[in-house]
């Protein structure tokens, strides 16, 4: 096959480190007694006596570091320079949708009238926030094909548990107590963990040779004890479950509900909707599909949207207008499962996501998904000679290849490929997930990488494979250009040092 893209500089971070490979001291090591950065206003409030609480008063101050602001700034600036990020280069980490996070959304997140508002302010004084949340709920419901949504869950996993508790409340309201929730063997780890926390037993349905749910096996598994199913579609192999209608019919026929894990929504926005597929409960990972930054691990946002007959169970409070949109207030549904967050979820993250949606609009959102799928298919096809593509059918926004052959021939494993890619200036794909593919490399380029960057990633992968064939030891020794090299993870786990004070 012929590919028409040339590699071009830009998508890789290979030029980044400025100097040095020394350790960065910890902030505690930078501490000098009596140094300070803080500056507090003079409140003119008199000093009040402590007599009442004397027996609670601590003797020593908490051992926080004492540093100058100059040292503080230098420390965290140096730390930042020791970290890969989307802003630095391509981040094809499968399942995580590490797309570019637009800067104007940072400005949205800094608007005084949004960030400096106390959550327990009476509704009359927070009309802007209530309107904003209501509008986001509308976007989420239209995109997923659902009736109403809670914006409280602060991440996908929290959304899963929220959705499963809604499922539970629904069954209870009908006097039923089914015990099992079906999940495919390719499911993300949060799915089975959430199932257990919701008090259900996770039952695994195997994937067929085509990477899709084995419908015949599913039929055998499902009975009146089945509370529902949790599916990602496209699934974690990047494949669309073509028989989704039939799968969900099986579940619905025993009175079960269908839960859609929206982690992979980036493939289908404006193209297909979970609601039209027959799902009843849907969470969206706004930090993936709608480009809110991942923050080194969080915060995220995982709104849960439901079909009409489940709206009564949604966590409250919900922003609602009781006068046709003139004003908004908080309303808690009658049979609400209760709060899942102390307040209303990661509100500022929600604002960023809405801003992104408004920017792209109805057509731009669809194009976003189409180009994510185009990029994934192109890169998959491009690297098919270097790695076995796990499943042959067209992929959605991501795909999984296996390093099994490479490992057999050279000893170089998926992990080594991931480490070597770091040396080339790219972040690694997700490795060893999903579990159904041996030596899995799960690659999600997202729509925001250029075709030139995709070509550069492909060439880097080719080079790694070539090096593995001639000099596997060189690959095992990678990365060499990163701030630190491979770590002794066993030592970290054997005798954990989790704080400065646990170090001997």
């Amino acid at each position, binding site marked *: 096959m012929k590919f028409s893209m040339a590699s071009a500089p830009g998508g890789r971070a290979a030029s980044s480190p400025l100097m040095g490979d020394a350790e960065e001291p910890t902030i505690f090591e930078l501490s000098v007694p009596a140094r300070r950065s803080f500056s507090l206003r003079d409140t003119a409030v008199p000093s009040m006596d402590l007599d009442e609480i004397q027996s609670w008063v601590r003797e020593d101050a908490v051992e926080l570091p004492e540093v100058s602001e100059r040292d503080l700034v230098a420390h965290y600036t140096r730390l930042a320079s020791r970290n890969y990020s989307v802003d630095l280069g391509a981040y094809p980490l499968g399942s995580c949708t590490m797309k570019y996070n637009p800067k104007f959304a940072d400005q949205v997140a800094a608007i005084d009238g949004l960030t400096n508002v106390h959550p327990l302010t009476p509704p009359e004084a927070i009309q802007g926030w209530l309107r904003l949340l209501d509008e986001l709920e509308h976007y989420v419901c239209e995109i997923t094909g659902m009736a109403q949504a809670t914006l409280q869950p602060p991440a996908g996993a929290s959304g899963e548990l929220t959705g499963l508790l809604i499922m539970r409340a629904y069954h209870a309201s009908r006097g039923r107590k089914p015990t099992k929730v079906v999940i495919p063997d390719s499911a993300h780890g949060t799915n089975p963990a959430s199932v257990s926390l919701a008090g259900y037993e996770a039952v695994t349905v195997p994937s067929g040779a085509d990477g899709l749910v084995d419908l015949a096996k599913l039929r055998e598994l499902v009975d009146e004890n089945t509370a529902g199913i949790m599916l990602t579609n496209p699934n974690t192999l990047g494949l669309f479950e073509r028989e989704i209608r039939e799968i969900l019919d099986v579940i619905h026929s025993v009175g079960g509900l269908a839960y859609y894990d929206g982690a992979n929504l980036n493939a289908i926005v404006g193209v297909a909707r979970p609601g039209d597929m027959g799902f009843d409960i849907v969470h969206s990972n706004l930090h993936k599909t709608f480009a809110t930054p991942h923050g080194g691990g969080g915060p995220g946002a995982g709104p849960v949207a439901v079909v009409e007959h489940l709206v009564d169970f949604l966590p409250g409070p919900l922003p609602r207008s009781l006068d046709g949109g003139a004003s908004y207030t908080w309303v808690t549904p009658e049979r609400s499962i209760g709060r*899942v967050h102390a307040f209303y979820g990661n509100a500022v993250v929600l604002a960023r996501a809405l801003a992104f949606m408004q920017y792209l609009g109805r057509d731009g959102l669809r194009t976003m998904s189409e180009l994510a799928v185009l990029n994934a298919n192109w890169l998959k096809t491009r690297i098919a000679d270097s790695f076995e593509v796990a499943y042959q059918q067209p992929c959605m926004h991501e795909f999984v290849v296996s390093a099994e052959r490479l490992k057999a021939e050279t000893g170089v494993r998926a992990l080594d490929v991931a480490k070597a890619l770091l040396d080339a200036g790219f972040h690694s794909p997700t490795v060893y997930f999903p579990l159904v593919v041996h030596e899995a490399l799960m690659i999600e380029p997202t729509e925001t990488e250029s075709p030139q960057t995709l070509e550069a990633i492909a060439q880097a992968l080719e080079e790694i494979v070539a090096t593995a064939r001639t000099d596997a030891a060189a690959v095992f020794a990678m990365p060499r250009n990163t701030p630190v090299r491979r770590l002794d993870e066993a030592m970290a786990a054997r005798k954990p040092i989790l704080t400065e004070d646990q170090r001997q």
Partner: protein
Amino acid sequence: MPSFAPHTEEEIEQMLTDLGMSSLEELYTSIPSTLMRTEPLALPKDLSEIEVLEQFSRFGADNSAVRSSLISFAGGGAYDHDLSAAARHLGSQSAFVTAYTPYQPEVAQGVLQALFEFQTMVARLFGLPIANASLYDGAASLVEAVNMAVGFTKRQRVIVSTGVHPGYREALATFGAGTHLEIEHLGLAADDSTIFGSSDGDHAGAAAVIVGYPNYFGAIENIEQARALADNEEALLIVVADPIALGLLRSPGTLGADIVVGEGQSLGIPLSFGGPYLGLFAARTEYVRLMPGRLVGETRDLEGRRSFVTTLRTREQDIRREKATSNVCTNQTLMAIQAAIHMAWLGKRGFQLLARRNYDGAHYLASRLSEIGLVPSTAKFFREFTVHTMGSATELQHRMLQHGFLAGVVPPNLDDRLVFAVTEARTRTEIDGFVDSLMKELR
């Protein structure tokens, strides 16, 4: 069309040609045609960047309750502190903001070391040996702590003080529906502190005893008494602590808590209408293998350099799956980093001074209110206390908004009370002005 995808029309054509396709629709042949949408989404068309910003400025302008125009005496789990420029700027560096979970530690030392330092600060603050790298918020931390206690003791029964934040208790009840939690409550005395009851008698055994420190109404609880009850029940003692209070008060860990959780918003995170906030979690070392969330540990790299890595990963959902101790994946790392920077900016002395200013402010307000007949019910408090209003508290709060004050928070289902909070951001002039306005309203 607006897009953050860099592709030119021509490049899209070329890529499709490489794939032997003639249109973008062809990418979706694996989706049954009956499921393909033919109609565009019923959403507005795209906007320019500036139009979106203007739209959000309007949302902001429709919130009259902004810090710059409203003087706040509200707390209830979200506090109006002065923030440091350093935390804001350093915490907004794109290397932190646009990274994800440090799965590849060789290129994530920045986030990992910042989290290791954060864990150290939280552990020292709470007086316990270990802390995790963050959970969603104070409520989530409490829920996770209870799950951990249930897992450890194999008991379903938990004893919760009604002084624990009502939002956290509600979240505990919500999630407890899945884990079959049996929640028993401890009532409050007239001074808003928990009645621990007599510690003899027939005890069924519990997974955990849970108290606030200080509690939602402001009362500084007697942790030793809570410990005694926990011992009697062979339960773990979980303390929901206000981190700022620990600049002045003895830490719950040293007073006998097994797990300390809390909301970290006070540590340099803007009010943000309730989120993103920061769930804090610390525990005794023996529970390390049951801890929820990420743990960052120290190790060495190939060349012997000190480095950091997420560790004890077998606790986590991606490995343990249905047997995981917690389902958390995405957490609140960025807030943890910002909190660590803010704590370092305050430093040992600043943190102490800050706590004292909060104490002084609250006690000054309390003494002024006592002068006008609003005597706090809370006897021993730090920066938050409760007063009983004659009429509806919601009504009074509404009227005080007209004077430019956010007059505390109304506890759910207790419309005859207001809980006031004072931080270092409140000046004597503001406090005096607040008391004057209250006096006018109450006359």
